[in-house]
């Protein structure tokens, strides 16, 4: 496939961000007509959109970070639109803290790259890092990953994201589609360097898996439309990190954009959505899920045999994850099987042919370390599915598991004063 990764990032991310930004701003302009907050919303919202688009388009690390700061500032101001609401103020403060934590490694990366390579051009940086065996080429990806995790509301810095439901609808739609993706976009630009560094891959896999666990657990327990959508963003972004760590970069770009589109549209239409009973996997019996899952694994094995090459541990882990997730969901009967097959097929096409990096494993030690780590997401998913099932059984064990699910396993570090947190959920 000749679709180059940078072209994908540029065209898709900037086009999608622009589309979403315009739709959200227009929605907000209508909803806020005659409202004193309208001017502020349009000014800061416009700035946030510009920041996101610049960030997606630019090849210069300094420009990217500047756009990022600008967008983050705008996001903070948007969250404070209803600053008189306690939850909104808290969300803004927590977001501020998380962003500043993320700034430190990124500023370090900025200084380090200039110091070592004398350039801020991302494409040049990636090339030079590939040719450079020194510690710098290993430290840079780690710093970038740390910054991205903090800024993209990933575990353990995710507490502010679910609180953004205190913001106006249009703001939530903007944040969940654009701002929160800034970290993943940056990682995608550096993906060649990131996937070659085992430590950064490990951070991505652990944080991504925990985010999937937290987001999936809490999202399924939320009775309110916006709460379910907001928590699901934590998990979705976590999944993008897992994809990047696995080398499925093209798919990660498609995911990022597809999720941004879907999530912002769902937020904008949240008043019309009857929030159905969450999670379609409730009714599936264990043998049914296992049988389906085995079928999916068989398909993957057939594909490997047919193409005659092993796709790397990352991809195998990812495919197992998708197979389990879909097998646990697919509705019964012919329609269900068709839906499962169709989704799996489409997903497979995306993953097999678009922008894949098959990473050679550098050393035996790292191989032993990384290969099992790539199956951490599968373990996390199986864990959530199992806990969900048990939490529905009557009795005190089920009840306490339900509480843990609903809180997303309390994986967040406190980003605000304890006194403020204690009063609110």
């Amino acid at each position, binding site marked *: 496939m000749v679709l180059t990764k940078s072209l994908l990032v540029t065209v898709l991310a900037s086009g999608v961000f622009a589309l979403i930004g315009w739709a959200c701003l227009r929605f907000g302009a209508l909803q806020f*007509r005659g409202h004193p907050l309208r001017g502020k919303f349009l000014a800061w919202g416009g700035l946030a959109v510009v920041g996101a688009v610049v960030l997606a388009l630019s090849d210069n690390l300094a420009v990217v970070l500047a756009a990022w700061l600008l967008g983050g500032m705008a996001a903070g101001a948007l969250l404070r639109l209803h600053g008189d609401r306690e939850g909104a103020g808290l969300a803004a403060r927590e977001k501020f803290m998380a962003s500043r934590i993320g700034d430190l490694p990124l500023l370090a990366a900025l200084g380090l790259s200039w110091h070592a390579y004398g350039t801020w051009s991302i494409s040049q940086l990636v090339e030079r890092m590939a040719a450079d065996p020194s510690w710098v080429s290993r430290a840079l990806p780690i710093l970038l990953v740390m910054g991205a995790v903090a800024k993209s509301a990933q575990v353990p810095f995710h507490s502010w994201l679910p609180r953004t439901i205190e913001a106006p609808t249009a703001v939530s739609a903007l944040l969940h589609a654009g701002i929160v993706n800034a970290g993943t976009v940056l990682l995608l630009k550096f993906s060649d360097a990131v996937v070659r560094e085992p430590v950064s891959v490990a951070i991505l896999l652990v944080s991504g898996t925990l985010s999937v666990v937290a987001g*999936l657990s809490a999202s399924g327990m939320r009775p309110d439309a916006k709460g379910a959508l907001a928590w699901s963003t934590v998990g979705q972004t976590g999944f993008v990190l897992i994809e990047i760590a696995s080398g499925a970069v093209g798919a990660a770009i498609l995911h990022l954009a597809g999720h941004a*589109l879907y999530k912002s549209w769902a937020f904008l239409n949240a*008043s019309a*959505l009857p929030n*159905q*009973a969450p999670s379609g996997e409730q009714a599936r019996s264990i043998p049914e899920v296992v049988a389906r899952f085995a079928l999916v694994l068989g398909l993957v094995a057939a594909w490997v045999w047919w193409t005659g090459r092993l796709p790397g541990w990352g991809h195998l882990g990812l495919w197992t994850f998708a197979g389990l997730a879909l097998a646990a969901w697919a509705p019964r009967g012919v329609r269900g099987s068709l839906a499962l097959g169709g989704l799996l097929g489409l997903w497979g096409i995306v993953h097999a042919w678009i922008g894949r990096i098959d990473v050679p494993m550098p050393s035996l030690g790292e191989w032993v370390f990384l290969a099992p780590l790539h199956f951490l997401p599968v373990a996390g998913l199986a864990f959530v599915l199992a806990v969900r099932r048990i939490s529905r059984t009557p009795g005190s064990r089920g009840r306490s598991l339900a509480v843990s699910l609903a809180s997303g396993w309390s994986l967040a570090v406190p980003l605000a004063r304890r006194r403020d947190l204690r009063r*609110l959920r």
Partner: protein
Amino acid sequence: MLESRGLEGRIEEGLGAKSQAMEILSACRRVPILRDLPQWVAVNPWMGWSSEALARSVGRIHATTGAQVLPPLAWYVQRMAEGGFSETHLRSAARRRGLDPRVVVSALEGALGKTQTQRRALPSEAGGWHRKLVDDLAMWLARRFGSKSDGEAAGMFAAWRADQEEDPEMESSLPGWNEWFRSSCGETGRFLEGSFPFVAAEGGDRSDAFASLFRGVSGWAAWLRGKGFLAEDFDHVRELLAMRLAQEAAVQDLLDPPAVVVSQSIEDIETRICLQEAFEDAWMENLALKEPAQPAARSGIHAVFCIDVRSEPFRRALEGEDPGISTGGFAGFFGMPLQLVSDGETDDFCPALLGAGFRGVRSSRREAAVPPLLGSAANLPAVEVLGWKVVPAMVRSLWRASSILPRSPHAPRPDWRDSHGADLSVAAKAKYAKGLLDGLGERALSRVVVLVGHRGRSANNAHDASLHCGACGGHGGAENARAAVSFLNDPRVRERLQELGMHIPHDTLFVAAEHDTTLDVVEVLDRHGVPSSHGPELARLEEAFRRAGNLSRQERAKGRGGAAEETRKLLERAASRAAEIGEVRTEWGLAGNAGFLVAPRDRSRGVNLEGRFFLHDYDASRSGSERLLETILTAPVVVASWINLQYFGSTVDPKLLGAGPKNLHNRIGRIGVVLGDQMDLRVGLPEESVFEFGGNWRHEPLRLQVVVEDSRQRIDGILRKRREIGELVEHGWVRMFALEGAGLWLRTESGWERMVRASD
């Protein structure tokens, strides 16, 4: 400490447990109702307080729930300065209420202070935990009922208590919480028999103090009360009260907070009621009705509209466009209390005060696009490929929404069944038909009688039911009109009616239509079923509907302050507004409603009532009119007073009695909306329904002014006999006028007072 205050101790201390049960019941009665979003209707937010005079209730409501009932003094001063009423009005209102006019006038100059009231704070308020407790409880309720709105309410307290025994979060906030619920809290029934020393008596009665525990979860209280409303079942609310009491008892035992007094202040109530009366007197002076007329001959076409205030401008326009068409007003469900079942959900298409009488099954009704996988693991990989599905819709949303009018004139007619599941009998159909015909009168039986139901049109609107027909349970009125028409055109039903002494001329044809109140379009339904013999009348009717729609839209555009525009453009504008997902004000609904006229149409025909009156046809000279009046005063008028007071409350206290700004709405399935992450359900109307773009009041808070053309004695008789309306009038929640010839009489606390123009 724990042992001494345990369950046994509570019961021993609980002397007079019986009277406590009564107090708790009356606290539960204070709670209004809130219905699910798809059947949302306006309700009287103070329905539990109407058994007492307004002057006394206002203060108690404020002390108990924190809500304001009357507008602030400054608003009246401003209205007076704008010429809304004069000092003459104020003086006569003061005299009527037995106040010194000089004192009231001086109050306007700011000479009047606020009254301070004090109450003992709850343990959680004293300890600074109130917000946490009610938030936690509201979230628990949202989880329990959120996924399926019919979730079991029975055993709610027991389930909640079991959760409290495990809850790690409450335990970390308030150490000892889990243990308290394990050892010191009993079953609901017994728990409520315990003693609650922190619930302070107010003049020997603690029902207000119990009711004040609902603060912070009042929306859920109302929703739970709504579940048992028709059956007068208070169990759900009582369980909620028990939960709140248990929380407070736990805080009391665990923290033993010091007794704290909360003081509140409220502007003088008597003065404000007096100003309200003066304002309403002045408004009523503008009502210029026509002289009583002799009944006209049978017209060629008679159109029956809902009493809804939005029908008035359209009826005026229709009669103006074609004088050969007469119009009437009747509750928009046309006496058809029907229920439709689809996708396992039942929807009642009838007033909230009434249970459904018969039911039908309709084919699947899909609601708006749902993210099918939200919350499920499959959503993670699926979003990659399915997320892109929204692109076309999103791209379309970048421009003004398309103005193509959605049409639904044909629908399969359900087979109606009675409550036992058998086919609805001819006798039953005739009974419902007779109820409608009694109200319409024989004069209405023209060659073509069109029954016009109504609905609003909006997209992405959680409160869309508030724009539909309240008499149809928050739905569009088309199904009810269709059912009525199918009964009335049925020859077997007509035969049966003949036996009951009710003759429908053989050439009379009933036709159903639907009034789209957002677009001002009236469309005839099931047009293909109309026989050719009545084709000319139908064509004439449709032409008149079309022209009347143009007129109404122009009138409305003037009301919006816009310039007169080409009529075609106005319709396109309205239609695209209605389809826009970001639009929060597709129409003003019943904002501005203030009056209810119970009289023949001749009295109001040609009079511009500015869409502020409910109009119900009523002819006192007809035989059997007394019973009809009783029905009108106890059903449509009570429903109209609910609507009126809902708009009143949402305007005067939008924070507690309104649903808040739509940009913060967060929907809990079919149940309701909350604001952001505060999980208490919101009652009342969204801010955008009662406030202008700039934040000014769109709705003018006037109590319902009911004008009945009949004798004072007859009205008095009904007010005495039927307390549901008698109470509202006597206690000042509704004002009742008798229209006798040219004289207008107001029912006051002491008797009837003849209204005289201030200028006379």
